[in-house]
């Protein structure tokens, strides 16, 4: 095992970096998307209900199947990988964003409007910062989940650590097959822990002291 890793260390590092980069960039995109969607729906109870059921049922779609379905549409490579990772990353963030935005005390919003903040200023300066801790919790859930999903996208020849897992599984019983799978899995776990710590740090930096729990 040690021999396997040390002989391919550069390759593993590169794949890990690509995996990490795919997840982080997709998360950023997913957070923006989720917040925008949440901002569009949270003031309407009907749309909020739709968003909640979509974010719940969306998670039941098998990731592997979605990757397979996207290959005919987008070919192999980065595009289907990003689409799948973003799709799954959006769901928990959307759910939390809707919960966070609808859970804000109406009196605070009323006083924001009352002192002359416009609808948009109220959202950006009051509602979003107040919902941010809940949204960030959703981002953390997403980050853990899509670390694994990003590995599946290697099926569509996407970037990242999935390649180690798939090649290992394909040659199971052969030389270094188990080592290859184990390397992929362990590296994904390490990345997940690192990213989670980074997100906790982000929370420390971005959640105002007044609403930190």
């Amino acid at each position, binding site marked *: 095992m040690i021999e396997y890793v040390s002989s391919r260390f550069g390759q593993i590092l590169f794949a890990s970096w690509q995996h990490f980069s795919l997840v982080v960039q997709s998360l950023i995109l997913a957070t923006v998307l989720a917040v925008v969607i949440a901002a569009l729906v949270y003031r309407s109870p009907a749309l909020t209900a739709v968003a909640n059921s979509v974010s719940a049922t969306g998670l039941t779609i098998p990731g592997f199947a979605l990757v397979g379905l996207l290959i005919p549409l987008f070919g192999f490579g980065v595009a289907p990988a990003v689409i799948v990772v973003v799709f799954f990353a959006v769901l928990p963030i959307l759910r939390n964003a809707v919960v966070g935005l609808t859970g804000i005390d109406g009196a*605070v919003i*009323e006083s*924001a409007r*009352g*002192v002359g903040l416009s609808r948009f*200023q109220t959202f950006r*300066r009051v509602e979003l910062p107040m919902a941010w801790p809940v949204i960030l919790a959703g981002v953390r859930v997403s980050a853990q989940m899509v670390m694994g999903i990003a590995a599946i996208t290697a099926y569509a020849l996407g970037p990242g650590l999935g390649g180690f897992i798939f090649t290992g599984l394909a040659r199971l019983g052969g030389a270094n097959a188990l080592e290859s799978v184990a390397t992929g899995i362990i590296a994904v776990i390490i990345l997940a822990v690192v990213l989670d710590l980074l997100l906790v740090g982000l929370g420390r930096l971005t959640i*105002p002291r*007044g609403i930190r729990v």
Partner: protein
Amino acid sequence: MSDNIPATASTDPASVITGASILLDQVSKRYPGQAKAAVDGLTMEIPAGKIVMLVGPSGCGKTTTLKMINRLIEPTEGRIVLDGDDVTGINGDDLRRRIGYVIQAGGLFPHMTVATNIAIVPKMLGWSKDRVAARVDELLELVSLDPAQYRDRFPRELSGGQQQRVGVARALAADPPVLLMDEPFGAVDPITRVRLQDELISIQKELQKTIVCVTHDFDEAVKLGDWIAIFTEGAQLVQYDTPERILAEPANEFVENFIGAGAGLKQLTLTRVNEVELQSAVTASPGDLSSDVLSRLDQQGHDHAVIIDGRNRPLQWLSRRQLARLERIGSTRDPRLPVVGERATLNDALDIMLVSSVGAALVTGGRDSFRGVVDVETIMVAMSQAHARARTSHAEGKPVGINTGALTALDGPHDGTAPLRSADRGAGGE
């Protein structure tokens, strides 16, 4: 030595009215799907620099009325006129930046510090950093919070009363001519509430804003209001008058019920001790011969002598019998002396009299110096005068307040002359 100390009414330094007048001109609010209007054809004049209290039972439309002034709720019909300008059509956000707004518990933004909360409107108006910082400190001082201590705190690190103060400071930040308050003191304990009310009165003395305040507490309305508007369902204005006149002359049974029991006692809270004629008293100093004091009592026809110290503060209050037992007057201070400050209400004075069972109390002014004596008769005379004044006065400068096409709503046992008279004057003030 016998000083006849006159009761001097405190004269406030002539302060400038910075408030603006408000006119609601035939304003209505109808919600879709509701047969009855929440506010129905209300015309109401709110004079500049005064505190107007909107009171009424829950759901009577008083809060809707308040929120239509800054157009948080857009009126379905009618005009809002602020300081002579029709503001019904202008941008609502711009309008609200010109009007202070305070809600229950302050409505502070929990993720912002006290300073950021207060600075939010001035920053939007593009004030410079230095000017904003100076203004924040000035306002914190105004609401009796030490800037150095509270500036950087978050709302959750403050007590309810302190949050409310910051809420008031934030509303005053850009020096708006009008302050709207929606049940501002509903969420604090009774002791804090009284203190906040007193502070609001003193802030208003200084700033002379136009304040419109919604409350369901009639006693609060009597305490704070220059004018009280009593509403019933559909924001029908039942009576719009001074607290004195509403207590003396309730327009109908609804108002009587709303005032509740003890209208007479509430009248007592409207008059302060320094507004009534105090009785003079024979005063003496420690060390005086009691025989001298007794002879002065005989001359003046009094039964008690007030012993004051070198700085004119009352020490003892001795009867003839007590004086007869002394040779010289001692300098000890009687801890049970019934003393009342001249800014106290007649209600407080009466309370002290009842507790002390003397039937009178010593009145002190600045630095606790002795001013005179107030007794039960004084209060009786003051009350009957106030009552007579309230009944006969035609409330100089009484603002207009009426609902269009709703004159029948004003019928009552007392023929409702007060509100109808304002109708005759027409919807002026435009």
